[in-house]
């Protein structure tokens, strides 16, 4: 009796990982799909904030891909301190923004290797495509990811397999290399054609990833947190609460000592309410306005500036004076301020 070949597939639900899953599945290989929760997925955050502007809720594409191909799927939470530490101190550096893609992939592969061993699987596969991404999908970095992830010879990239050295499961005859692909580069035309051939019609439009770390505006806020801590003589570090706040509200750097976060929607206001401990909570009185938080130790001038900005984003922005409540622990103060009208100043403070 021949042994059942088993593999772990890293699936995000994007077109490439969906195709990789189908290519491995059609060889009769038993697959367990794994999807990693990092805390930086834009779609997940969109869902947390109540969905898209039109009220619709984006699908969880990893679940959709696994459901379509009837593959067991497991969500693995890697968003803890070790992952955050890797983001702050990447060995292979950042991409264009705050994205240490090589380090992130290495981190994921190490976790995938553990799962592979626990599940008694023969190899791990991904939807990576040679040359598709400038940093993490070059020939040399694909090799680093495999080696440093502890998966030497056991990491299959079905979409580019014919352009890469044969892996151990291919050499052992567990995987038929001739039925894998030789796709490379940034164009998705080959993948779309392959989707047609494999009967895969339902997949998200290729959009170059859904990770906040690759977003320029998010990256500014990310590095601002680290730089401000360093300027205060603290360690450069990030915690889970930082991650939630980084994707919530408008951020203003008042000084290295103080930052203001202003909610943009009712959902964001509600989210900020969960993060009041340890921060000052600001809200305009009498007129409707956003909830805002101030982190750090602002000077008196910075407190008034924060109050003026909060007033500017409320319904009283045209009023001569607005009362803004400042709550900090048991301390409650009210400031009578003119809403900040100097847009250039606001922009200069915006992170």
């Amino acid at each position, binding site marked *: 009796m021949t042994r059942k070949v088993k593999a772990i597939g890293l699936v995000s639900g994007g077109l490439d990982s969906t195709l990789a899953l189908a290519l491995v599945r059609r060889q009769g290989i038993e697959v367990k799909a794994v999807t990693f929760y990092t805390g930086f997925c834009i779609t997940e955050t969109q869902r947390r904030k109540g969905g898209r502007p039109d009220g619709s809720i984006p699908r969880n594409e990893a679940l959709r891909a696994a459901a379509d191909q009837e593959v*067991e*799927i497991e969500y693995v939470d890697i968003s803890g301190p070790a992952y955050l530490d890797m983001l702050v101190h990447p060995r292979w550096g950042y991409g264009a923004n705050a994205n240490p893609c090589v380090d992130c992939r290495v981190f994921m592969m190490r976790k995938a290797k553990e799962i592979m061993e626990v599940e008694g699987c023969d190899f791990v596969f991904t939807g990576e495509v040679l040359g598709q991404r400038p940093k993490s999908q070059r020939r040399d970095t694909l090799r680093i990811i495999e080696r440093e992830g502890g998966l030497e010879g056991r990491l299959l990239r079905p979409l580019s397999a014919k352009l890469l050295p044969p892996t151990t499961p291919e050499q052992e005859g567990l995987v038929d290399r001739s039925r894998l692909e030789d796709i490379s580069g940034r164009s998705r035309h080959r993948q779309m054609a392959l989707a047609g051939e494999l009967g895969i019609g339902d997949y998200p439009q290729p959009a170059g990833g859904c990770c906040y770390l690759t977003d320029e505006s998010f990256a500014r806020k990310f590095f601002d947190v680290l730089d401000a801590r360093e300027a205060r003589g603290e360690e450069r570090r990030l915690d889970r609460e930082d991650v939630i706040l980084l994707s919530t509200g408008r951020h203003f750097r008042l000084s290295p000592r103080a930052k203001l976060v202003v909610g943009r929607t009712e959902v964001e206001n509600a989210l900020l309410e969960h993060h009041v401990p340890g921060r000052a909570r600001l809200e305009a009185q009498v007129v409707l306005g956003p909830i805002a938080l101030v982190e750090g130790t602002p000077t008196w001038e910075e407190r008034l500036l924060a109050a003026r900005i909060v007033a500017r984003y409320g319904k009283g922005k045209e009023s001569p004076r607005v009362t803004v409540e400042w709550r900090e622990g048991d301390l409650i103060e009210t400031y009578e301020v003119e809403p900040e009208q100097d847009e250039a100043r606001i922009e200069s403070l915006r992170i």
Partner: protein
Amino acid sequence: MPAPCRTIDTSGRLCPFPIVEAARAVKAMESGAVLLVIATDPGIALDMPMWCKATRNEHLGTFREGESWKSFVRKGAVGR
């Protein structure tokens, strides 16, 4: 809906954790047993049917009740 043999309340937890907790609960149950998942994340109405299909468990239904959703899952014979 059949009476659940186990209920988990994931209220306040957001995508993907209601599914993560449901998966953990189902794993510990006998085939044919029914799990009720209470959630406040509206995404559960989309996620639970897909997760059940992927893992060969039976999605009996997901219903809104005020601010919460109630999702019933029967563990399949080969459910995981």
